[in-house]
């Protein structure tokens, strides 16, 4: 299937059926072996399912990379209160477009993953919190859930196993911060979407005050494959600490942007040059944001030695995040780029914590002034010092996400800033070289 570009370097596990509209239909899904993993999981029992996922080394694909099996094992073994499984489908990190595609092309894969996860943590209810702007994905998902109920894969006594698991699809109303796990819970409960103070952690007090586990769409989509094939099978790809495959959302100045599923640890330079067909118009690479807009930006030299797994990214001073690779060529003005991202965060800050509420907007003001050619060299010092106070001082990490691109851009692309400051002229409209 051509969707929209493919590469023979890909290892397709969760994205096997991208581009195939038939996969959305429950009959096709079942014909192709779907819901087999669920049946197998029911036969294994919750503890064994958690163990299989633990042995696979699967790590959360939402950005933090926390081991999924370990997270599941935090749930209370004695069920004194209802447990909930939450699926975070509020994909809103700038540069990320993998969860939407997973839902659009293969909704039953997600539902099956959710059901296995819910079974593993002894939850009787699944909430899929789907980003409100994803109209098509929401419709596809709603239809798939309806079909799953109709065919007995959800609801009471699933496949005659005696397990009851309900699924609710909840549409968000368009806030970046509702993708933060506790912000998502507040939003789901009908409160303001503001992250909660931790502890208590969701496994103790989560949605509606009950023990909850929250997983990303891509994480849950990998679960049926792991349950079917075993943990060792999944470990054939990737590294010891970062096993398996990962969807990379490549955007920006490459010839063939798109979603590519690759083994973790794949070299970033090969992703750009080989998989994505190289830089557009033969331009030189200037910078890459490897994990969505919240992570530090890296320059061409760092790109050359970056391997795309959790440890490899940390080694070059950035993070894998949700593997949203934004590639920029040498026509890019980094100041404009970073200013646009900071504007986004200032707009999306929930406004709870002072460093984030005031700091993100203040950073945006200074960035805009520099972009308008009215900045001074002292502004860069202010930015560096002030954003440092936004790191680690807030409830969630949104304010850290403002600091990371700003600090890394000033450190690595200072000439871009100085050029604007010294020229005393606005940066002008975007280049289209």
């Amino acid at each position, binding site marked *: 299937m051509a969707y929209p570009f493919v590469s023979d370097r890909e290892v397709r596990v969760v994205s096997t059926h991208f581009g195939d509209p038939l996969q959305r239909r429950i009959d096709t899904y079942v014909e192709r072996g779907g819901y087999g993993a669920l049946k197998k999981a029911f036969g294994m029992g919750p503890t064994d399912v958690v163990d299989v996922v633990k042995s696979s080394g699967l790590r959360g694909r939402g950005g933090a990379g926390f081991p999924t099996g370990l997270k599941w094992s935090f749930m209370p073994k004695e069920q004194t209160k209802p447990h909930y499984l939450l699926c975070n489908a509020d994909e809103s990190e700038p540069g990320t477009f993998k969860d939407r595609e997973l839902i659009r092309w293969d909704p039953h894969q997600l539902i099956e993953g959710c059901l296995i996860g819910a079974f593993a943590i002894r939850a009787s209810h699944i909430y899929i919190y789907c980003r409100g702007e994803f109209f098509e994905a929401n419709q596809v998902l709603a239809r798939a859930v309806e079909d799953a109920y109709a065919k007995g894969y959800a609801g009471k006594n699933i496949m005659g196993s005696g397990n009851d698991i309900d699924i609710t699809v909840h549409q968000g109303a368009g*806030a970046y911060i509702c993708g933060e796990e506790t912000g998502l819970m507040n939003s789901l409960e009908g409160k303001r979407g503001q992250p909660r103070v931790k502890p208590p952690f969701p496994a103790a007090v989560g949605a509606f005050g009950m023990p909850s586990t929250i997983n990303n769409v891509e994480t849950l989509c990998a679960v049926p494959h792991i349950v079917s094939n075993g943990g060792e099978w999944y470990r054939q790809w990737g590294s010891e600490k970062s096993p398996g495959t990962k969807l990379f959302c490549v955007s920006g100045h490459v010839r063939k942007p798109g979603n590519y599923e690759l083994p973790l640890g794949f070299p970033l330079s090969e992703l750009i040059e080989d998989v994505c067909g190289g830089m557009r118009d033969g331009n030189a690479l200037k910078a890459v944001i490897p994990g969505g807009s919240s992570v530090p930006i890296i320059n061409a030299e760092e790109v050359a030695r970056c391997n795309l797994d959790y440890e490899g990214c940390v080694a070059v001073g950035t993070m894998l995040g949700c593997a949203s690779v934004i590639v920029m060529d040498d026509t890019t003005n980094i100041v404009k780029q970073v200013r646009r991202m900071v504007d986004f965060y*200032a707009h999306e800050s929930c*406004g709870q914590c002072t460093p984030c509420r005031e700091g993100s*907007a203040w950073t945006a003001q200074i960035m805009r002034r520099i972009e308008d050619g009215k900045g001074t060299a002292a502004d860069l010092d202010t930015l560096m010092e002030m954003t440092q106070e936004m790191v*680690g*001082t807030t409830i969630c990490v949104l304010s850290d996400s403002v600091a990371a691109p700003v600090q890394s851009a000033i450190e690595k692309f200072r000439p871009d800033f100085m050029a604007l400051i010294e020229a005393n002229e606005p940066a002008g409209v975007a280049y289209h070289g």
Partner: protein
Amino acid sequence: MAELVKLTIDGHEVSVPKGTTILEAAKQIDTLVPHYCYHPGLSSPAMCRLCLVEVEGAPKPLPSCVTTVTEGQVVKTQSEEALGHRKGVLEFYLVNHPLDCPICDMSGECDLQDYVHLEGRKHGRGIEPKRVFGRDDFGGDVLFYGDRCVMCTRCVRFMNEVEQDECLTVVERGNRSVIDTFFDEGLEGTHWHGNVVDICPVGALVSKDFLYKARAWDLDHTPSVCASCSQGCNVLLHTRDNLVHRVKPRENLDVNAWWMCDHGRLDYEWMNVGDRLEAPLVRGNEGTRTAKSWKDALADLLERASALDDKSVRAVASARASNEDLGALAELVGAFGGGETVFRSPRAEEEIVLKGFPTLARRTDLAPNVKGAGLLGMKRVGADDATGGLESVAGHSGIVVVLGDALADQPEDFGSKAGLYIYLGTHDSAAAQAAHVVLPITTHAEQEGTFTNHEGRVQRFWPALEAPGMARPAWLILGALDAELTGEAGPQTAAEAFAELSEAIPALGGLTYEDLGTRGAVAGTKGAVVGTQGAPAGAAAQAARG
């Protein structure tokens, strides 16, 4: 007794009950970690991020308002790291703050001023234009200055958790967040909204009643007890130029915690009313009244009394008078020849309970000392609006004494059949025209004394204002008369007056002013452990929140 946890704060070893927060524990070594969103009476969202402290072993600075102590913890509230973080956070507060301190009502008692002076940067780096919200009328007594707001949401949480009437909320997000009311439904009609002005750490929520009336540093604060109902909320009277300018609640977890109702808060103008009785007035035989010295007036009174055949007494007291005043009246009635004392007091139709702190309510008895008058055996008469019920006094032929009741509903010939009619009041009254002696007394704001609240808690108040002219506390006047009649020395201080009363009335059980302190004591509990100065309401709210 709760389990104790030992930890080290700034090099000092501290032992506090398990579950205590670092911020509260630090108070034990007299360290106040700066904070905005934390209030002991509310849940803690840990969102102002000002109370960050360094805890050894923690990867990040921790908010001391929600971080509970653990055994052996080493906390540094004043380390370079902790101070650095707080300095950084304080700078963020000033990015959009208008710094209009010269025209801000909160100036001088503002937590933003205090903390920035204490720990903030000397010079700000913000040169960007500031965000402007302007001003909004929240209804009731509250005015909102959006630009000064630090977004601590104490007001929102007070309305949600304590008053439990969700009138305020945060709208928008990011630095566009602002406190607002729902459409046109403001705070009008709620009964406890004045507290949001008290707990606002800055000048964002100000009282319309107090707006531009005085600067905070010009006000004297005198501890007192609210005289609006029988709850006996502990208050501070804020005075300047011998006028009460506002009333603020004074913390007492056994009575009103940090709160008070709006009725009590705005019920102070009467203390400032002029046109007072300023000198003793003695009625001559031809009916004219002459101002006399205290000595002459009392001598005249005693002479008139000694000439009487019928020395039976009918007295009218007031539930707004202090225990000392009422006790002295009871003594005097006995010394004259005995008789009955009645009092009248208005009654509201229903209590207004503060839902989040249900032991606090605006009680139905709208006077501070109904219980005290009852303990002294005085009989309540009259209707719920404090009228009528005085028929047996009005036409009494012996001695009539009126203390503190203005007799507004009584005719001009009240007491005209009496052999001796003594009227003690703050203001003259039509029904005092027949009085042989009119004696000027002080209000509770001008004297020292005690009230007994609805649950029998005896609480002290202190003089906040100077009494006009020759007005004196009633206990001093009545005590002097009693001394003349009995030959025993009368009390010279309010403390002596209370001690005598406490001896005489078994219900008070020998309490003294020392026993009462600033928070009072329940009558009849001397020697017992009194009060529940323990878990604040916030701890319960926190627990409920999980």
